[in-house]
């Protein structure tokens, strides 16, 4: 896929979360990693790419198609994407299976038994066999996050957007979740991932967008970026993250 942003600005009160972000990826980018310091605009850009937020100015294109700026169009666009957030954000009053199946029935008009079958199949594929009836509070953080990934994958999204999916997890659960993401990437799922897991990004991503202070500092093939980051900011960021690991 080709992601493009032209002078995208998004303000919250007086703070510009995106301040004229501009970049373009290669046409065959499969896994795009958004890297950069916290507060740099990664999450906001991810939400704009997924049509959860509409920018105040500028435009975003996916495979040459401009994203809608109206709410009705944004809703339709959102339905073609899958989202996973930092806090697992499952619906706490629903079982793992219902979390996956309910949107399939209500949003994608799937028949009840087909939705359930799809949910059971996906949960099993993500290693949650036998957990279908559990509510989120009865599962570990890693299991919840895998259930959230199952929910995001269920409607076969064009784009899977992950916003720091492992930031709230301990190292063991982080590995569980990253294994799943890697398998998906290897299976050809198109992914945009905001993360601080640099070594994971290095292994999986084929394009890197490095952001700081609401602007895109670098947008390059992952291999090039990790071998020789162009900006001093990116160099410092990578050094800082690798200091203790």
């Amino acid at each position, binding site marked *: 896929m080709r992601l493009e942003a032209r002078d995208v600005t998004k303000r919250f009160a007086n703070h510009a979360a995106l301040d004229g972000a501009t970049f373009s990826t290669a046409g065959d980018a499969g896994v795009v990693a958004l890297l950069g310091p916290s507060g740099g605009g990664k999450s906001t850009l991810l939400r704009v790419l*997924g049509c*959860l937020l509409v920018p105040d100015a500028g435009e975003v294109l996916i495979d040459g198609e401009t994203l809608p700026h109206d709410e009705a169009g944004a*809703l339709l666009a*959102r*339905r073609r*994407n899958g*989202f996973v*957030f930092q*806090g697992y*954000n*499952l*619906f*706490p*009053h629903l079982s793992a299976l219902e979390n996956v199946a*309910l*949107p399939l029935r*209500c*949003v*994608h008009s799937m028949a009840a038994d087909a939705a359930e079958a799809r949910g059971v199949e996906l949960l099993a594929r993500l290693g949650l066999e036998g957990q279908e009836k559990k*509510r989120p*509070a009865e599962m570990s953080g890693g299991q919840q996050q895998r259930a959230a990934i199952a*929910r*995001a994958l269920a*409607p076969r999204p064009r784009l899977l957007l992950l916003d720091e999916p492992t930031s709230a997890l301990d190292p063991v659960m982080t590995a569980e979740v990253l294994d799943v993401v890697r398998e998906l990437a290897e299976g050809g799922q198109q992914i945009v991932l905001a993360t601080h897991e640099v070594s994971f990004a290095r292994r999986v991503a084929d394009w890197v967008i490095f952001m700081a202070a609401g602007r895109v500092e670098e947008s390059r093939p992952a291999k090039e970026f990790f071998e020789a980051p162009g900006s001093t900011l990116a160099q410092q960021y990578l050094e800082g993250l690798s200091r203790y690991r």
Partner: protein
Amino acid sequence: MESEKNNARPEVARHLLWGAVLFIAVGSSLYFAFSAVHYRWNWQGAWAYRQEFLRGLGMTLLASLAAMVLSMLFGVLFMLGRRARLVPVRLFCAGVVEVVRGTPLLVQLLVGYYVVANLFGLDRLIVGIVVLAVFEGAYLSEIFRGAVESIGASQRESARAVGFSPMQTYQHVIFPQALRRALPGTTGQLVSLIKDSSLLSVIGVEEVVQKVRSMNSAAYTSLEGYLPLAIAYLLVTLPLSWWARRLEGRFAYET
């Protein structure tokens, strides 16, 4: 699991035992208090009016039940109105809620009866039920609003992310979670409603308090009417509270 089951029986027994002890203690204190003031009971005078009493109780139940259903409807409407995007709708609903909560139900009933009912030729019972429902609905709307607003931004974002429309978000994500948080406050308000229905007597609705008053003046009784009245209210409100606690248990899940 096993030990929980074994513990359940002594737990129930302990509750029953303490319940009996407290009941006897409170009951005998009341008995001594009444005998100390030398109250002269006239139960025969009261018993003659039992049918009137039951008829009044029936009217109270009917009016309360109708007002309960309506008040929840008003509660939801006012709550949605206060969250609406249109400024006039928001202002109107906020104004109604504040005025209704800030003025006595007695005055609202009198205005409703002498002005609105006369103007449109409405039945006093209908007006009474609607005024009562608006009054309790104003309180309910604030309970509902608190519950709905306590559902976090991350839940709303998740709902948007899976593609729910605003309506579907309310239906599948916000209402089911808010319902559980609103339950304890709602039960209290509905119990209040049943008791507040006694004020319908001021516009001439023959509910149970009105019946007891007429009986007291006809048979020269007083507590012989009011004590059964209190018990009759408890017989209605206690099951309501009990049922609400069962519902709370059913909706219980950790967040």
